[in-house]
């Protein structure tokens, strides 16, 4: 099976090169606020992923009939609809997680990463590509949330997957891993400033990796164009 290079490019853009969390720095408010544990991060990440796929598909499906002048309100309405769906679903099936995410669940409506993709990509491309773009951007966002949540939970409480039963049901209680025993929590990692600092380190790490890759690449020999410069005045 041949993979369409366009999909490959979309995946690369969403997961790494143009990652909404690390590069575009969009949707920082939920990113920083709810990532105190992995489970919270997972819940919000999956909710965002779902909304992003659905809104991208819908926006792309109706792109022929949306007048340019009022496209933004229409996008927001579509996103708000899906957010409401997610909110009601979570309220029904994962009530504890719904409570621990609090205001940040309805605030997905204002997540710039979603409206950014609707405006920049989905409103100009066919449904298939738009939904795939939504999936990849959502996965990229989810990955950043998970890494951030894991670092903060390990530093702050010394555990991983604490409270997984809120999201996945009773059987998940045993998923909780005690990485090390802490007598006193490292509160900074759990508080918002810790999120900012960790996020800074993550971005720095990504830039460092990019630089390493760029250095490792063999330099293309540029063909020297030899031309005698005649006009010295400019």
């Amino acid at each position, binding site marked *: 099976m041949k993979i369409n290079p366009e999909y490959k490019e979309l995946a690369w853009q969403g997961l790494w090169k143009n990652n909404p969390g690390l590069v575009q720095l969009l949707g920082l408010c939920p990113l920083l606020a709810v990532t105190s544990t992995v489970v919270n991060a997972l819940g919000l990440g999956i909710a965002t992923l779902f909304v992003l796929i659905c809104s991208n598909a819908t926006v792309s499906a109706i792109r022929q009939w949306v007048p340019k002048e009022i496209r933004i309100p229409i996008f927001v309405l579509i996103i708000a609809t899906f957010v409401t769906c997610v909110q009601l679903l979570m309220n029904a099936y994962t009530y504890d997680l719904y409570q621990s995410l609090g205001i940040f669940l309805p605030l997905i409506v204002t997540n710039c990463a979603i409206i950014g993709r609707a405006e920049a990509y989905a409103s100009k491309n066919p449904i298939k590509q738009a939904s795939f773009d939504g999936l990849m951007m959502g996965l990229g966002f989810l990955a950043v949330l998970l890494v951030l949540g894991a670092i903060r939970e390990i530093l702050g409480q010394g555990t991983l997957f604490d409270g997984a039963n809120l999201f996945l049901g009773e059987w998940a209680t045993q998923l909780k891993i005690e990485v090390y025993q802490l007598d*006193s929590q*490292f*509160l900074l*990692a759990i*508080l918002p*400033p810790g999120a900012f*600092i960790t996020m800074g380190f993550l971005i720095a790490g990504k830039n460092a990796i990019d630089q390493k890759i760029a250095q490792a690449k063999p330099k293309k020999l540029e063909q020297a164009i030899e031309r005698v410069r005649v006009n010295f005045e400019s």
Partner: protein
Amino acid sequence: MAFWIASSPHNHQQSETSALMRLVIYATIPGILAQWYFFGWGNLIHIALAVTTAIVAEFTVLSLRDKKITSQLFDGSAILTAVLLGISLPALAPWWITIIGSIFAIAVVKQLYGGLGHNPFNPAMAAYVMLLISFPVQMTQWQPPLSLLAMDIQFNDTLAVIFSGYTPQGYSVEQIRTHIDGYTMATPLDTVKTNLTLGLTVAESMNSPVIGKHFGLGWEWINAGFLLGGLFLLFKKAIHWTTPFSFLISLFVCSFIAFIISPDSSTSTMFNWFTGATMLGAFFILTDPVSGATSVKGRLVFGALAGLLVYLIRNFGGYPDAIAFAVLLCNMAAPLIDQYTRPRTYGHDLGAKK
């Protein structure tokens, strides 16, 4: 820039960063001695730990950043930061508090912002605030002066408490802090603050054993020690007089006004001067040339703002002492203060008439 046409005398000050830093470190000695005399070995152990960690952290970051290691590692700034941090920690705090604090001060607050001369915040105080916010329990277990303790604490006892949490006889920090009569002793500032919430007047709190005869048993002498060190620095012209002067005057005026209005619920001016970290803050922390204001007028504003903040946080805030918070807030305000207090360049107009 037209320096080459400047007329003589072409005098150049030969002193280097390391000499200045060494001078400041020497000036902390009287205060540290007073701390040792009244509170035992705790702070000396913390200072040693902090200096070691700071040097290791500085070395690691400098080698990661491909900087000149010998000249920058031994310019003394990291050591000074570590000494100030060690002084300000509670004497019986566990060892990892100091380690985390010094690594944060050097690696994050100083080097991540670009090293000495580029840090917007005072590294020692930023680390102190980070520790206070992250570990409120350990960071508020202040040890009462030795003379009030029910047990005799020697060097090896302190060492054991810091590294294991218990003395060789098995006493915990909580037990050490407990008075013979069975109540836990706090710092003078904390005592006054708690008593006010209990409905006692300041005059009544002054009878508490931790306050002693004057403003706080031991604390008054520690502050006197730092004042002495500060005067030495002023005499050596290592620091400018403006910041400490305006800081102390501002704190004096604020507490004086409050004392006049309601003497029962406000502490005296001298109590504000000689408890907590007032003198350490005035002469050793606010005078940091990197994170403070630059011009004379700017420094006056900077110090006055710090004094006001210290007074407000001490009396209306949630924490008993306020130097670290006030310093960080003033560090944030320093660029703005500099912006509005730019000295007039010679030959330019006064800006009054246009």
